[in-house]
């Protein structure tokens, strides 16, 4: 285990905002935005795996995309290697892209169906000039072996592979440019359990081997628990809790995290966890609730929650929570919901 002092910050996201304008229903309506990510700040340390979890639409992918500048963020800064990549020119950004790579969810959509594996990997190497042309073929085979595929795969097209194998190819492509940080956006969500395990193991192995840093996006808390060092929980474009994995899973401090954890069915019939059932659905990010965004579904919400937005506070070491009542609710012992509001 690394100690605190050893940790080096690789990526720092500060006050990131990503608003998408939405179509209006009437010409008289004021311009509306989806506040997909609304003012979030966090850091990713070198060599660690930071996971982002949350329900669908909470802004996980948007965060990842903003960091990669696949969409230009509305506001905020993203520091990588001392540079704010939001300000980089297109050309500078292209050069930097070798360091930041991404692995996507859909094994069917993430490879160009008209390129052979060789072309896919070769193009990556050529764009980033990570490997000289004559050496490319050897390197490709090496990469394929690394992700568990035989070299003969090179001349094939993506549709000749199974989902898990395609995911391996996606990983090989990311590795082809010797990245430092890989953002895995739901990289295993579409896979069956048995295949998912293969990929998760592979990712872990590669991380160790190449000192990679992962930003791991997922909605599956079990997977997150397996793979991460630290976990960040998002709700409606906001960070609600961020902490070391163990701390978060064993002693969550935000009522949402708590509810989320308790909602997950455990594959063990003898475990009967007390469940906090949340009412209703996630509200629309177009007009998110005022104050604490979770107050509409929170069993503990008070008037204050409706009006005052909670700050992200460090309540335990390396454990940040944005809830007005975090201390009272789950610390030190998990508490039951109060009977009256």
């Amino acid at each position: 285990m690394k100690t605190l002092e050893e940790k080096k910050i690789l990526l720092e996201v500060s006050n990131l905002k990503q608003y998408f304008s939405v179509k209006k229903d009437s010409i008289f309506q004021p311009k509306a935005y989806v506040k997909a990510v609304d003012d979030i700040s966090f850091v990713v340390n070198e060599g660690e795996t930071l996971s982002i979890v949350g329900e669908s639409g909470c802004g996980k992918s948007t965060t990842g995309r903003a960091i990669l500048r696949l969409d230009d963020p509305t506001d905020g800064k993203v520091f990588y290697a001392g540079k704010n990549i939001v300000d980089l020119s297109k050309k500078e950004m292209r050069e930097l892209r070798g360091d930041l790579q991404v692995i996507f969810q859909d094994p069917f959509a993430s490879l160009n169906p008209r390129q052979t594996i060789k072309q896919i990997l070769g193009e990556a190497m050529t764009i980033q000039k990570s490997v000289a042309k004559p050496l490319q073929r050897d390197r490709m085979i090496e990469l394929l072996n690394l992700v568990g595929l035989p070299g003969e795969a090179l001349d094939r097209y993506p549709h000749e592979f199974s989902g898990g194998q395609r995911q391996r190819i996606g990983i090989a492509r990311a590795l082809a440019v010797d990245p430092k940080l890989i953002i895995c956006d739901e990289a295993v969500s579409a896979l069956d359990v048995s295949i998912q395990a293969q990929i998760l193991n592979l990712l872990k192995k590669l991380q160790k081997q190449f000192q990679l840093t992962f930003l791991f996006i997922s909605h599956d808390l079990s997977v997150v628990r397996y793979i991460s060092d630290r976990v960040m929980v998002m709700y409606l474009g906001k960070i609600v809790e961020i902490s070391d994995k163990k701390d978060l899973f064993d002693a969550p401090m935000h009522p949402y995290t708590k509810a989320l954890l308790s909602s997950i069915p455990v594959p063990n019939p003898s475990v009967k966890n007390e469940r906090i059932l949340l009412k209703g659905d996630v509200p629309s990010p177009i007009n998110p609730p005022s104050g604490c965004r979770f107050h509409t579904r929170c069993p503990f919400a008070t008037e204050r929650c409706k009006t005052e937005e909670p700050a992200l506070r460090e309540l335990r070491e390396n454990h940040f929570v944005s809830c007005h009542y975090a201390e009272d609710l789950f610390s030190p012992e998990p508490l039951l919901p109060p009977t009256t509001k």
Partner: protein
Amino acid sequence: MTGQNETILEVKDLKTYFYTKRGVSKAVDGIDFSLRKGETLGIVGESGCGKSITSLSILRLIPTPPGKIEGGQVLFKGRDLVSLPDNEMRKIRGNEISMIFQEPMTSLNPVIPVGEQIAEAIRLHQKMNKKEARAKAVDMLKLVGIPSPEKRAKQEPFQLSGGMRQRVMIAMALSCNPEVLIADEPTTALDVTIQAQILELIKDLQAKLGMGVIMITHDLGVVAETCNTVAVMYAGNIVEHAPTQNLFDEPKHPYTRGLLASLPKINEDKEELYTIEGSVPSSYSMPQGCRFASRCPFAESVCLQKQPELLEQPDGSKVRCWMYSDQWTGAKPQEEVFS
């Protein structure tokens, strides 16, 4: 609660094949199970193993062509649904056996108000006029916990969220008090917090209405939480069928064991996950022997030659594996392999 143990649905050697340009896909290849009143049977398995086709075959909803039920029986209260005339079958659908589908987004007709879609099922099977049926539909919406049901009944599906649509589906399925409810991955498309709500709802309603439920899912967690018995499917077969507790405490089939072992768990940390190497054989070219043999760490020559039967075990579970037969010569599996 009389006749709690009464079997209402029995599937015997059901075979459903698809005849396509690429060949014959034996999607479901000889399946047996039974369901009793008030029981929840879980069917789990990886994608493409034939879970949905099984459920669709029961209600005879397979797209024909290319699909065709090639053999077997589906006995519902003694009647074989496979050979039932179409009009008889229609009387059963939605009335005595109903179904909830995975995709709440696409399973409702986009241009008909949800209330009407529920009322349609009611009017088809119960002697009610339009008005009564509509009132009943609103009641059903209330039952599944949709706020302001009158208003919602008049809305069209696109105005509802995913969770609400799934509730509508449930309301529709339950509106005629069916004896069997088939839920085909009812929560896969939903977020965990919503999933919890829906599962809770189904459990509640089952307790209230006393129907038999077939819960199809690939999530072992869901199974553990909701089912009395579980059938594990692999490549068109049931490989293990056991009471839930047994299955999780003492999985028998190497596939089931592998599956459980490869699952990351929310409540424990692991350095490395067990992996089942290889992948599922193509449904167009099934191996002649045990379908799991190529991925099985224990496979012997017999496994490659002949498909094993579903063998009854002393604890009441059934396993399709040579290891549990008398012919087995190889080593008995060791638990450590799957850690």
